[in-house]
């Protein structure tokens, strides 16, 4: 009874030993002046910055603005990538027409067109949303396309022989078969989503987490800069947890998500 409990406690201690030790050393280093606060403020200073920005509302406001941009971009880019992936996946002519273009565009680093985007949209919301949409489009497109193309042809043949109509074939065989791959695409897309948004907000914005950290840099508030970085990490982790949850919910039949 106590042995598994002990083992779990030991595992927990082992996993967190290194981060905890680093925090302690960091805090100690900052207090003794070994680490200059201007370059790397103490963890306690970051905690204070967190509390200050939380109470004056700027933290929640900026986080909300960033999340909103991220989600709108994801919806537009992801939706487009999904539709293109489905169309090219099930139709050879569409693939021939569109896929090579998609592959060319995919290989352009989307952050490289930031100057162009600023010329087009200025530093308005559209610029950030456009960049996020572009960043998430390709991972979703590629994985949807790949997922549909790798659906077991034996199942498709079976469904045809058993008289499933094209719509039923899509909803009952092709889409569920492609779903694991599509969800992997979504996970990649979420990573690209935050990455793109950080860069876009850092370069041109007057609100959002990226703006908050850039603004803090101007005033040498290194603690707020670090807070912003931690916030991005936390949001990225949250997105990952959400997709894992979605995968477990959407793929209960999958060998990887069997509980028994």
């Amino acid at each position: 009874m106590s042995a598994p409990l002990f083992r779990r406690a030991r595992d927990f201690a082992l996993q967190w030993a290194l981060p905890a030790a680093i925090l302690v050393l960091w805090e100690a280093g900052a207090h003794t002046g070994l680490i200059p606060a201007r370059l790397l403020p103490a963890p306690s200073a970051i905690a204070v910055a967190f509390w200050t920005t939380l109470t004056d509302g700027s933290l929640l406001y900026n986080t909300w603005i960033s999340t909103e941009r991220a989600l709108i971009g994801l919806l537009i880019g992801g939706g487009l990538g999904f539709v293109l992936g489905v169309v090219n996946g099930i139709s050879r002519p569409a693939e021939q027409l569109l896929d090579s273009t998609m592959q060319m565009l995919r290989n352009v680093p989307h952050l490289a067109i930031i100057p162009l985007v600023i010329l087009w949209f200025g530093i308005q919301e559209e610029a950030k949303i456009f960049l996020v949409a572009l960043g998430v489009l390709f991972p979703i497109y590629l994985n949807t396309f790949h997922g549909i193309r790798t659906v077991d042809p034996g199942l498709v043949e079976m469904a045809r022989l058993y008289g499933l109509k094209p719509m039923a074939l899509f909803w009952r065989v092709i889409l569920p078969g492609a779903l694991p791959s599509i969800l992997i695409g979504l996970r990649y897309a979420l990573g690209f989503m935050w990455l793109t948004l950080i860069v876009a907000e850092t370069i041109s914005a007057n609100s959002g987490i990226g703006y908050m950290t850039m603004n803090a840099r101007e005033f040498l508030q290194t603690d707020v800069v670090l807070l912003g970085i931690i916030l991005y990490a936390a949001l990225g982790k949250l997105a990952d947890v959400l997709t894992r949850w979605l995968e477990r919910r959407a793929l209960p039949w999958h060998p990887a998500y069997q509980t028994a």
Partner: protein
Amino acid sequence: MFAANALRRATIDDAAAALLPPRTESTGAAVTLGSLQKSFGGKEVLRGIDLHIPAGQFAAIIGKSGCGKSTLLRLILGLDAPSAGEIAVEGGTTAAAARRIMFQEPRLLPWARVVDNVEIGLGSEGTRLGRRERAMAALDEVGLADRAGEWPLVLSGGQKQRVALARALVSRPKLLAFDEPLGALDALTRIEMQRLIEGVWRAQGFTAVLVTHDVTEAIALADRVLVIDAGRIALDLPVRIPRPRRRGDPEIARLEGTIMRHLFNEQGHLAA
């Protein structure tokens, strides 16, 4: 000594007969093929097949790999068009649901529960409640009613094939084709499945066409064994052993010998 043996054998047969449902009036479709030919890109696979399978008959087709037996099955099912000759399937088989096929792999949708997989066999016919009822009845026929709510993943290979059989049966087909359905199963499960297939065939009276590599299996199940060699029917052998057939029956061994000789020695070559 002899009498005791005979008595014991009789009781075993009685027990087996009790398991085997009585033969129902055939509701199957008769299949007639006339000088059927099929070539793929200039290569002749079938070179003139004349064959009549009466309604309700259980016909087995055997032959070496590449002899054209699977092609023949696809033509009978209407999945491919013949290059020449004709196919007639009589008895209201215009509906797709009247012809069903069971593959070597179960081909169950992994993301659909067992009962939903069986419902696929109904195509788009029926109301939601009626479909569920029929699917459950079909699952009951293959002895898996208690697994209706499970994912296919958790079933054994034999159980998956039983679900595939239920899916093929649920629309009450008039013609049921088996494309080596038991090839991937272990020996004991295969015998169980053979009994099950024989049982539902007798109960439902469809016409059955079984393609197999396994000569013993063909003789155990079929009314008639057709050996295909080099695109032609090399042997058409009626199997008149009364059902239920016992494993190890000397008559089965004798027929097996005849077929084997046809497959190998008398043709004078081993590989096609």
